[in-house]
């Protein structure tokens, strides 16, 4: 469900370019000297899980198999060993790559809409439903033309069950 072959080809090219850039960068850039014990993979993944790389759409960083994402995870490890906190590391990624690296839009400005609109619509829907139910449960004035305001006969399936019910009562 995740992949569509043609749509992804452009994306793959993008990612290859990015991966290449990362590999190149890693050749010239030596990570800062680790100051603490090397953080475990689990500690790295705990943070990576909450981040998305801008290239591999909709794949969290902890499970993304691409080389680019592997480099990112190493970056998290380096930062962890330098003593940075989870929040600082996430902020570092947001500063460098934009808010889309976060699994959810930050709660600022226009982004509030994403959190507020659905509950608002649901409440309106619930209100409409409540009103409609209230209106329906009041007896309906016979609608013009049809001349039928009595309840419809219940379908045979329910007759059957009703019979069963009666049968049950008798036996009790």
């Amino acid at each position: 469900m995740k992949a569509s072959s043609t749509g992804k080809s452009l994306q793959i090219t993008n990612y290859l370019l990015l991966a290449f850039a990362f590999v190149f960068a890693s050749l010239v850039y030596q990570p800062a000297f680790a100051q603490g014990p090397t953080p475990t993979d689990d500690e790295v993944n705990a943070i990576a899980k909450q981040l998305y790389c801008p290239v591999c759409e909709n794949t969290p960083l902890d499970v993304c198999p691409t080389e680019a994402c592997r480099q990112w995870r190493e970056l998290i490890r380096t930062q962890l060993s330098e003593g940075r906190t989870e929040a600082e590391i996430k902020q570092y990624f947001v500063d460098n790559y934009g808010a889309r690296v976060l699994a959810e839009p930050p709660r600022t400005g226009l982004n509030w809409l994403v959190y507020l609109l659905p509950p608002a619509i649901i409440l309106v829907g619930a209100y409409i439903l409540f009103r409609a139910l209230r209106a329906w449960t009041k007896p309906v004035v016979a609608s013009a033309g049809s001349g039928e305001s009595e309840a419809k006969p219940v379908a045979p399936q329910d007759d059957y069950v009703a019979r069963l019910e009666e049968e049950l009562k008798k036996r009790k």
Partner: protein
Amino acid sequence: MLAEFGYGVLMVSFIVALYSVGAAIFGVRNKSDAVIESARRAMLLTFPLISLSAATLIYLLVNNHYEVAFVYEVTSRSMPTYLKVTAWWGGQAGSLVFWSWLLSAFASAVTLRKWDRDREFLPWVIVVTAITLAFFLGMVVFYENPFARYWQDINGQLITRIDGQLLTSVFTPVIGATTFIPDDGQGLNPLLRHPGMVIHPPMLYLGFVSFVIPYAFAIAALVTGRTDDRWIRLTRRWSLWAWLFLSFGLVLGGRWAYDVLGWGGYWGWDPVEIAAFMPWLTGTAFLHSVMIQEKRGLLKHWNMVLVILTYALVIFGTFLTRSGVLSSVHAFAQSAIGPLFFAFIGITFITSISLLIWRWPELRGETEMKSMLSREALFLLNNLLFMSVLVVCFWGVIFPLISELATGAKVTVGPPFYERATAPLFAALMFLMGIAPLSAWGHSTLNTLGRAIWKSALAALFLTVVLFAVYTKNLIALIAFFLIALVLFVTMQEFWRATRARQRAQDENFFTALARLIGRSRRRYGGYIIHISMMLMAIGILGIEIFQTETQGTVAVGESLDISGYTVEYKELANWDVPVRGNPQVNYTRAAVSIFKGGVYLGELYPRKDYYYDSQQNMTIPGNRSTLRDDLYVLLVDWQPISANGATFKIYVNPLVNWLWIGSLLFLFGVIIAAWPDKDPEQEPVRVNKRARQMSAAD
């Protein structure tokens, strides 16, 4: 030659579909049965035509005609024949042909039925299906042509467009140009070569396309003004089968993700997944609310809204699953078909809603609701909840686009958003699933409901207490388990009660009574089986969502990793090429690990990483040990190529996830029971008699 032929036939089917639309409308306006019959035959003709074109495309795919761009993109010489055939739906152009082919098949099947009592519907059903068909064929003929080829000029230079991209065209673009035939194709994305992925798209498409039929009947009912529930009765089975295919397509997609995507899950709230999920939501709401119209003559407007929404979401989903263009405004603007799809969805949606508004007064309910706790009221609540999930999903998918358009800032709306927003809605749905079967059509009170439910509720509570004592202290999980148990007990009690009653009344043994009971009201009991299956699936989902544990580590041979009572010991690593006709096609790197639990040896697993040379892609295949209690899911993340001493594994323990797959099999069974054709005609006398009464009264 073949490419021209295939394209020509497609062009002809496009014209035939357009003719069918025109003839049907003309026939109605001039009250000419002969012209309507001509429209019907034109519709019937589209099926063999598109089949011929599809056969041509398959021939090109199977026989390595790499001058055809689509064939080049989705196949390669090393692929086995069956994959070359299924590559038909491996890319956008081909899947549009596939969609059209399915639609023409379904539309033909519908037009072949007996129309004696519903003659007035026929032309409009043809109009709706033929317009949809013409739209999809038009996309293929004018924009996403699977028969377009590569060309070179007289000097052997590849012909490119101004933007530098290779030019593709069915016919000679310049005088003297000849087709350019690459030696080999790119090959299908290896992720799509999995059996689950071979069946998943057709299932999803079958579901999508079959929902067009109920929509066509709904529109026919609106146009003709025949606003009783005839259209619903005619399309009830279509809707159920459509729902079955769509549901199964979703499940297969999940299973595929679990097996090949290597992230330990089955569902990532990806826009593409949600696009397929949204019509399922409206479809499920529709299946429930049509029952209210059938039984009580209420909700006629709402059913129309639901079927119209489902159609719009089906088209939207088809577009999104193949193009992925919602990922960015740029991708959308650059895609030739994006704006056209949106225009089509917009026009059909506005037209349908206008028709509905036009007929609004005639769709008034025929009876009143007596109680807020009646089954119809609870079904309405169920509809509200499904619509709420839809709102969350739709908004989550659309919001990144809106954000980018408004502020230029890209954002991700990921799983935490959807999970938080939908979890309470799903819990409420489960609660409804528990009480709705106990409420009666027309009338129920708290008292009657309470009397019916207390035993099941008590049993569910007891089970929850046991789970609290021995399994989990997680509050959310306990609430969910309580709801699941409630639904299971209520549903099983329904089976038990009715079977026992029948057993006594008919003097049958228990199993005969049960079988006959189900046989007598298949929709009801098929529905209950579906409810049970949903709860089994819920157990699986709950297990993986709440109790999943994971660890990752690099170990040398002989060393091990521990997780949730399991010990995974790294034994060895092997690496080899799989050649096809002398050329390496895939490189396998396979680790062997031993599994222990509490010191007891359980067996070996073989997590793998496959590298596909032609498409230069990796695939991570988990080693998975699956039991009813949990799955141990081991991924090979990385390894030391030279020494083979150190390898990195990522290990998940996914409790209860197997129930998801078990539930989906039971689900299949339930839908088949509910949708199985009746031997005797539908139970229609209620409505038919009423119509007859009205008619005789009119006389």
